[in-house]
Every structure is written in C-alpha cells, then in structure tokens.
C-alpha cells in the first residue's frame, strides 16, 4: 500500500517562526477536525466496495432478511464456488484477455511514437495534431457505436477480438498520447543534448538517456489502457452480440440479469472476482497516472 504515499516534503510548509498569529493548539484542533472529516468521507466512499465484498461472502438466506448483515461472520464461499465453477466465466475471461492484450500492445506503441513526435520535434502541423488529439476526445463514442458496428459488420469483424480491438485502440489512443506527451516533456531535452555533445547520435542519446526515464510513464499509460479496455462495456455490448464472445463486463451484466431477483450473493461474488485484481493493478500505478495527466495539462 505504499504506492499511494505522496512525497513527504509536501505535507505542510514549515510554519515560519516569524508570524505565528494563531496559537498552535487551535490550529491542531481544527486539523484534527478536518482529519476526522477526511476519514468519514473515506468511509462513505469505501462503503459500496465493502458492501460488495461483504455480500459476496453471505449465504442467500442472510441477504434476504429485513435486517442487513453488516459483517460477514459465519460467511460462506459458496457464491465464489458458483462463479468460478461456471465455464462461461472462463470464456469471457479469455476474450477479455485477448482484446486487452491486443489493444494495449498497439495503443502504447502508437501513442509513444506520436508523443515523441509532438514533444521532441517542432514541425508544421504539430499544433493541429495536438488539437486533434484533444478534439477527438470530444467525439462521443456513444454517438458513433452504431456506425462502428456497421463498419465492422461490412468487414465481417463483428463478434471478433480483432474487430473490438480496432475500435478500442482508437478509443484509448487520444488520452494515452496526452498522458505520454506529459511524461516525455518531463524529461529535459538538455540531457539528450548533453549526450549528443558527448558523441552519441540522436537516436542513441534517446534510447540510452531518455527511454529509461520514461519507463514509469509507459507503465502508467499501459495500465490506463488496460483499465479502459478491460472495463469497457458500451462498445463491447454493441460489437460482441454473440453470448460466446462476451467480455467480462458483459458476462457480469448477464449474471445480474439471471440472478437479480433471486441471488445477489452470486452477483456480488462475480463483481468481486473481476474487481479485486483490477484494483490491485490500479493501486500500483495510479499516482503516475495523475502526475502524467497534470504534466500533460501544463503545456509541454
């Protein structure tokens, strides 16, 4: 859990000795009050996630009571057994894995070279490209999916991993370029120049000096792309109409519709199974994601 600890030097600016107009005790009292508020907000935000895990361990007869059980004492693994014993889960898992892998490989590679171009070169049309990347994100995918479906239908790519990956790559590229651009700009060009002075070629300088410094940025963008593709629902709903080709989110929705009225425990177990690995992944890289976004937002 150390991934979320911010650098320590930012906690509070050292209080200047010169002006301390307020007595220290009151300041710390209000600090404690704000701290308590922060914890309450945190609990409110965690509750749905907690409720999912809690309900996943409860047998059906304890979910269908007038009084909810807030703690899973005497819980059961039956819900998880039912989910993990279901072959359709593994089919969906395989489809999700294939689509995500394909999308990631393409998106990261393409976004990386594009980010390189816009942050390391000055050329005619550079600004238009940056604007395009921004404006493309305004295009509501929800307005396009029908025509994307028709296009894939024409090429016989509906219900195929390749077809879904094509529209996924287009969907995650703009933001990935945006993020990577921030990371690339964050590595001072002077470092490369110094290496070039020492006789390295431009390419050599880039791969020996800049590229290692960019690795965290690439990982962060990769995880962003992974989360997007892994969790995406709308395009999958439109493109993967065959139940045999469902991705995990579609599978989960199917599970809800089959068990909504009867068995929330199984549904929660299904949700927990697809949530926990994703959250673990996410915790490792989220800080880089945020700082990359900030760096991308400040001009670079």
């Amino acid at each position, binding site marked *: 859990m150390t991934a979320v*600890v*911010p*650098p*320590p030097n930012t*906690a509070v*600016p050292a209080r*200047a000795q010169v002006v301390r107009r307020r007595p220290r005790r009151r300041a710390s009292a*209000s*600090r404690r009050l*704000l701290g308590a*508020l*922060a914890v309450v907000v*945190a609990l409110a*935000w*965690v509750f*749905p*996630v907690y*409720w*999912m895990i809690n309900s996943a361990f409860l047998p059906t007869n304890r979910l*269908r009571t007038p009084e*909810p059980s807030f703690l899973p004492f005497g819980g059961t693994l039956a819900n998880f057994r039912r989910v993990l014993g279901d072959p359709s889960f593994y089919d969906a898992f395989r489809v999700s894995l294939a689509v995500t892998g394909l999308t990631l490989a393409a998106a990261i590679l393409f976004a990386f*070279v*594009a980010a390189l171009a816009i942050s390391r070169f000055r050329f005619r049309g550079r600004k238009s490209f940056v604007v395009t990347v921004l404006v493309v994100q*305004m*295009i*509501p995918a*929800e*307005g*396009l999916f*029908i025509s994307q*479906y*028709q*296009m894939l239908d024409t090429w016989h790519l509906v219900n195929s991993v390749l077809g879904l990956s*094509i529209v996924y790559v*287009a969907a995650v*590229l*703009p933001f990935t*370029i945006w993020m990577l651009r*921030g990371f690339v*700009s964050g590595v*001072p*060009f002077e470092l490369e120049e110094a290496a070039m002075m020492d006789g390295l070629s431009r390419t050599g300088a880039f791969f020996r000096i800049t590229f290692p410094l960019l690795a965290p940025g690439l990982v962060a963008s990769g995880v962003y792309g992974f989360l997007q593709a892994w969790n995406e*629902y*709308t395009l999958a709903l439109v493109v993967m109409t065959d139940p045999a080709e469902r991705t*995990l989110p579609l599978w*989960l*929705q199917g599970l809800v519709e089959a068990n909504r009225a009867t068995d929330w425990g199984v*549904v*929660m177990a299904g949700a927990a199974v697809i*949530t926990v690995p994703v*959250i673990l992944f*996410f915790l490792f890289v*989220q800080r880089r*994601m*945020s700082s990359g976004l900030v*760096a991308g*937002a*400040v*001009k*670079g």
Partner: protein
Amino acid sequence: MSAPPAPAAPAPAAPRTPPPATGSTAAAPLRRRRPLPARVGPYLLLVPALVPLAVGLGYPLVRQFVFSFQEYGLAQQFGRPAEWVGLDNYVTLLSDPYVWGVIARSIAFCLVNAALTMALGIALAVLMTKVGRAARITLQVGMLLAWGTPVLATMTVWQWLFDSQYGVVNWVLAGPLGMEGQRGHSWLIEPLSFYAVATVIVVWMSVPFVVFTVYAGLLQVPDECMEAAQLDGASSWQRLWRLALPMIKPVLFVVALLQVIWDLRVFTQIHVLQRAGAPTRETHLLGTYIYSLSKEFSMAGAMATIMLVITLALTVFYIRRMLREDEA
C-alpha cells in the same frame, strides 16, 4: 471551516501563466545534421497513431454523417442504393418534442453531475492538503478503491444497495431514520429518482479522478510562493484561493472539460439502470436514445451528429481557452 477573514494584506498577484512543469518547454533548437530525415521524421512518427484513429473513429464518423442525409433503412440493407433526403432526418428529429426533452435532460444531467463532481473533488483535494498524513492516506485509499472498481461491478453493487426489498439504502431510510414510506420503495420507476440514483453513482465514480488530479496539481505549487505569501500575512485560506487555485487553473480547466464531456455522453450507467427495471422512454439520455434508434440507421446518424454539435457547443469555450494557453 471558519469563514475566510477579510483580506487585510493584499496577497501577491497570481501570475497569469502557470510555472512551467519540470522539463524544458522552450522549443529545443534542433541541429539538423541530416536535413531531410529530421524534417520527415516527426510525420513518420505520427502515422501509426493516425491510422487507427482514421479507421476506428474518422471513417465511422464521416460515414454516419453522410448517412444522416440519406434514407437508409431495410431496403438499403438488401442493396438498394440510398436516396438523398437532405435535412429530412434532422427535421423529423428536431420537430419532435420528445427529442428536445432528451436533449434538455442530457444537458441538465451533464451540468449537474459535472458541477457536483468538480465541487466535491476540489474540496476534497484541498482537504487532503490540510490534514495529517494518516487521515490523508485513509482518504486516498478510499478514493482509490472507488476509482479502481470496474464500472460494471460498480453498477451491480449500486443496484444491490438500492434494491427495493433488501437494499441497504431503503433499510437505513426506513429503519434508523424512521422514514416508513421508504420500505420497499422502488428507486428506478420515477424518472426523477432514477436520475438521482444515476447522479449518486456517476459522482461517486468520477470524484476520485478529480481529487487526485487536482491534488497532484496543488503539490506542484512551489513551496517558496506559499511561504512568501505566508510571510506577507496571508491566511491559509487566502493562500489557497488567491494563490494555489489560480496557479493550477490549467489543470482545473482540463479536468472540468473532461467531466463535461464524460457526463454528457454517459451511457453505461443509464443503460444498466434501465435494464434493472426502469421505464426506458422516460429515462433516455442522448447515448441510450441513439442506442434505441440503432435499427433506423439514418436517424441514429442524425441524432449522433446533433449530439456531437451539442458537445462542441458546450466545450468550445474551454477548447479556445486551452489553445490560447497552449501557444507552443
């Protein structure tokens, strides 16, 4: 949470442009040892990104735009050439009061959600800067768990929370809070309470991103500035309102822009809630309405084009501002 005192000492004027991030933003003069490759290089680097964008987004967009001026239905599926009908599809849609209702609801939903998300997100980011380490990490972990949960898993949990019979929301309202009328209450039947549930879910999902991004921005405000302001006698709230937040304006702009775009095109949450037993016609927003038109391809294309225009209208102000600031 005391009210900010009247500004006694003028806080130092915030610089209009943000301090450059780490890294050189100055155009690096390139020594062109090989003039031609250096000139063609960047364009070659852009090609791999442009191809999937053109195929996956550009082509469907153009195609849909063209179809929106044609009559394209069942006969055309079987190979009859489509007829040009000019603006007929648009006229049909825009003369339908129901469509205007969908548009108005979508814009209202978008603005309410984006405003709530931004207000809560900025407030919590500021809160993070004002509390001790333990409280801050607790809040961060809570936010991260919410942020990292896949959207479909989130939707299932919230459906369970708002379940009319055994959902914990109704239990809390009816039991400890004594609102007997809430027992067995169906949240999704009434459009207004349907949107309230959707708003709770969307805000819950969107706030963490705003919090972390704004917090990361606040950390970039140089300590020297804050200390100098403090020495000049600015209170901590003044330092926040007049120094830190203005300094991270570009970050706030980008985040707000993304929120508006994302909340206008909200689809998954509405669609899943509709499938959970809500009347679809009364609860459609732009995305789900277009989805419901999928059989009438020309109409869907026209509606999607209208949606694109609305998106641009809502965001053009931001984009122009960002371009003015992005004078690279």
